[in-house]
């Protein structure tokens, strides 16, 4: 199989981040976006509720309209979209194999941008034991069923998880005529509520069971009930339901990143990138939720625009990943980007993105290099579990490029 096609920039994945990248780049060079779904747009295409577009398109939109807007923008800018085509592996440093109805072929590129997104961990990956009945879904599958196929889901659902997306599941269930009888989250109750801002107050009537896990699913044909265990007391309660939605608990779709041998961050499990979104492989870039599982679509799309400078730089001069390694200290699970160059280009929106496992209402964030505090700031927003915590990248301004790893930590 010879290289069948060569382009300047290949974007793998046509979600908001990939499309935004294509829209920003296509004016100056040849860009091909390969998307495995029948239509580009990514997750928002399946997610027919409002809450999209605030930071990038400056207005609140419903998911499908938002997805379509980015698709149109990419096409209008002159990018080529190959839809219903899947990148299945690498055949060279910047060359991939593609399966499509038109055949199987290779695409080589001067630069490759990975924009493959994230998925939610399904029940199996969370290791929830019990029967294996119908009616256990991820939010992604739920939204596909309801929004794309207008399928019945059930009457009484238990939502597992306490992230932003968990509320998205509640909204979709309601639209499908299914009541959420409990939202079971490992976090304290109030934290789960604190997350809920953008989806409207009405859904708040969902009973939140905090500090708890679903430890068993029961029902032979269809879900009949789940067993919920309190983390502190160990007490178990049986909750009757016919549907279980496992929400959030993200894992990047990192198969291509891994099979290319890219350095991955142990916290995000996505590629470790610098502030300009370069990976450690020359000419291979990464954007979107693949890097920060999972942020909102607008932030993913802004990555797509942000990476353009580094891609152009690579095409013109061949710049490679640079900077000092940034690591997260618990309760921060990860911080992205993982490399920042002091005095160099700042990350997108001048923010480090991170994820916390415990709530800190008015956090002080500190940056330490070789055990010494080199930067500190207080944010007026909380660090709350279940959504990305944004840190002004200015705390890294005094990092010394010649010294060791920087650790980012939270103080109450």
């Amino acid at each position, binding site marked *: 199989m010879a290289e069948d096609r060569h382009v300047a920039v290949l974007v793998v994945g046509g979600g908001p981040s990939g499309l935004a990248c294509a829209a920003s780049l296509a004016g100056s060079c040849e860009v091909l976006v390969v998307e495995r779904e029948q239509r580009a747009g990514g997750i928002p295409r399946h997610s027919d509720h409002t809450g999209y577009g605030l930071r990038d398109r400056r207005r609140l939109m419903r998911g499908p309209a938002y997805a379509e807007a980015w698709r149109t923008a990419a096409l209008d800018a002159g990018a080529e979209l190959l839809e219903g085509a*899947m990148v299945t592996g690498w055949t060279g440093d910047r060359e991939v194999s593609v399966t499509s109805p038109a*055949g*199987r072929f290779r695409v080589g590129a001067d630069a490759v941008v990975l924009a493959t997104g994230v998925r939610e961990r399904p029940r199996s990956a969370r290791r929830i034991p019990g*029967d*294996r009945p119908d009616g256990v879904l*991820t939010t992604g599958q739920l939204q596909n*069923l309801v929004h794309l*196929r207008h399928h019945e889901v059930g009457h009484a659902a238990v939502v597992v998880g306490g992230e932003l997306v968990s509320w998205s599941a509640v909204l979709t269930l309601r639209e499908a005529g299914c009541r959420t009888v409990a939202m079971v989250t490992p976090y304290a109750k109030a934290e789960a509520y604190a997350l809920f801002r953008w989806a409207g107050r009405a859904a708040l009537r969902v009973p939140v069971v905090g500090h708890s896990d679903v430890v068993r699913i029961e029902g032979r044909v269809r879900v009949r009930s789940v067993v919920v265990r309190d983390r502190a007391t160990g007490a178990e309660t049986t909750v009757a339901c016919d549907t279980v939605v496992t929400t959030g608990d993200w894992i990047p779709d990192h198969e291509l990143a891994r099979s290319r041998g890219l350095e991955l961050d142990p916290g995000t499990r996505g590629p470790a990138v610098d502030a300009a979104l370069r990976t450690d492989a020359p000419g291979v870039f990464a954007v979107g939720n693949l890097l920060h599982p999972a942020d909102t679509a607008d932030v993913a799309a802004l990555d797509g625009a942000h990476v353009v400078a580094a891609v152009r730089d690579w095409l013109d001069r061949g710049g490679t990943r640079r900077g000092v390694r940034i690591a997260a200290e618990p309760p921060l699970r990860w911080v992205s980007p993982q490399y920042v160059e002091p005095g160099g280009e700042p990350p997108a929106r001048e923010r480090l993105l991170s994820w916390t496992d415990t709530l800190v209402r008015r956090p002080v964030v500190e940056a330490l290099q070789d055990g010494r505090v080199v930067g500190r700031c207080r944010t007026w927003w909380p660090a709350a579990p279940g959504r990305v915590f944004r840190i002004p990248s200015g705390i890294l301004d005094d990092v010394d490029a010649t010294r060791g790893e920087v650790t980012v930590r939270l103080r109450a």
Partner: protein
Amino acid sequence: MTYDVAVIGAGIVGSAIARGLAGSELSVALVEARSDVGDGTSKANTAILHTGFDASPGTLESRLVARGYHLLGEYAEATGIPVERTGAVLVAWNDEELAVLPGLKEKAEANGYHACAIVDADEVYGLVPALAPGARGGLRVPGEAIICTWTTNLALATDARRRGAALLTDHRVESVTVGDGSRAAVTEGATVLHTTRGDIAATWVVNAAGLGADQLDAAFGHRRFTVTPRRGELFVFDKLARPMVPLIVLPVPSSRGKGVLVSPTIYGNVMLGPTAEDLTDRTATGTSEAGFEFLWEKGRALMPQLLEEEVTASYAGLRAAIDRPDYLVDLDPDQRYVLVGGIRSTGLTSGMAVAEHVLELLTEAGLDCSPRADLPPPPRMPNLGEAGIRPYQDDARIAADPAYGTVVCFCERVTAGEIRDALASNLPPADLDGLRRRTRAMNGRCQGFYCGAAVTACLEQGAVPEEVAGRG
């Protein structure tokens, strides 16, 4: 009508027997309680094609496993059932286990298997570098292989059907009126099986009902054995773990069975399990917290690196253990009844040999089972294995039929063409699980996050809807 033979149970064993019988002039019914074939123990095992090296020499099981290994190996080649001849290494972790190895090698030889070799710790780590530290040595069993149990069952049942056997799914046999052999009654003295979908008359009956075999045996008036469901729970790890496990890693067997193994799967994943737990409920195929914890501990001891990878699936199967250390196959000439019981933990491998054995018994009893001349060729099964070329990789195939270029299930790379073929096959799926077993759709790491709704739509419409098929 009165069938010459009714075979009860469309697992691997029953399907193999029905296929064998349907190759003669006899009329055959394959009677199954569930809506699909291969929906019992035959769908949930560790899917190893065993050489039989560790069977008890001299038993029927030893003989039939060794024979089945060859029969199924050849049949797999003829039908395209995926097999990967990875080999196995049995690992000893202490002096005691190390001391057992020479005996195991001798046992293998007594079973007619001569390719085992004792290897030292360095060789063990050479074979499986990701293994936890502390291995002392091992026994190589180069002949052990991995196979697709779903395709095996499906091929045998499809073959049986193409040879003319009637497949009667959703027919649970609830009671039996044993025929007296006279030619007087309407049923001409045949045995009548009373099922949930009406009566079935047959001159001969073969009981291959797996977990239900003892109850059915009781309906024939026997009280000779009890089936104990022995649950085995398993984890399937992400494909990204596959390079860690190039071959089957077996523990030294104990009295509790074969113990927990780590094995590659034919679909390119890694499997950890099974547990062994005696239950009373024959339908308890759920997984348990205790089982998960046990497996996690075992995994940590065997290959800690494996636990860093995502779990793609977990499931449990029930072995039909009986209160004796061998298969129980017996023909009753008066009742014109054959019991095939206690095919516990090796029946995937031995199924075709069990069928051959049953045909021999029936021939001795005077039934003409000799093959007829006009047999259809064995079916060609779709390749679900990672070792062969999958349709999404097959340029020529996509060129001839673009539906093989439309990937519907991204994680498992199942195309619209394959889903279409399964729905239109001689033995179409009855439910979502059936479609999954025929194509692997939805079996991947996202478990339907992307394709679940599309695959459900395919099943409900019995075809691939246009918007799923795309331009293919």
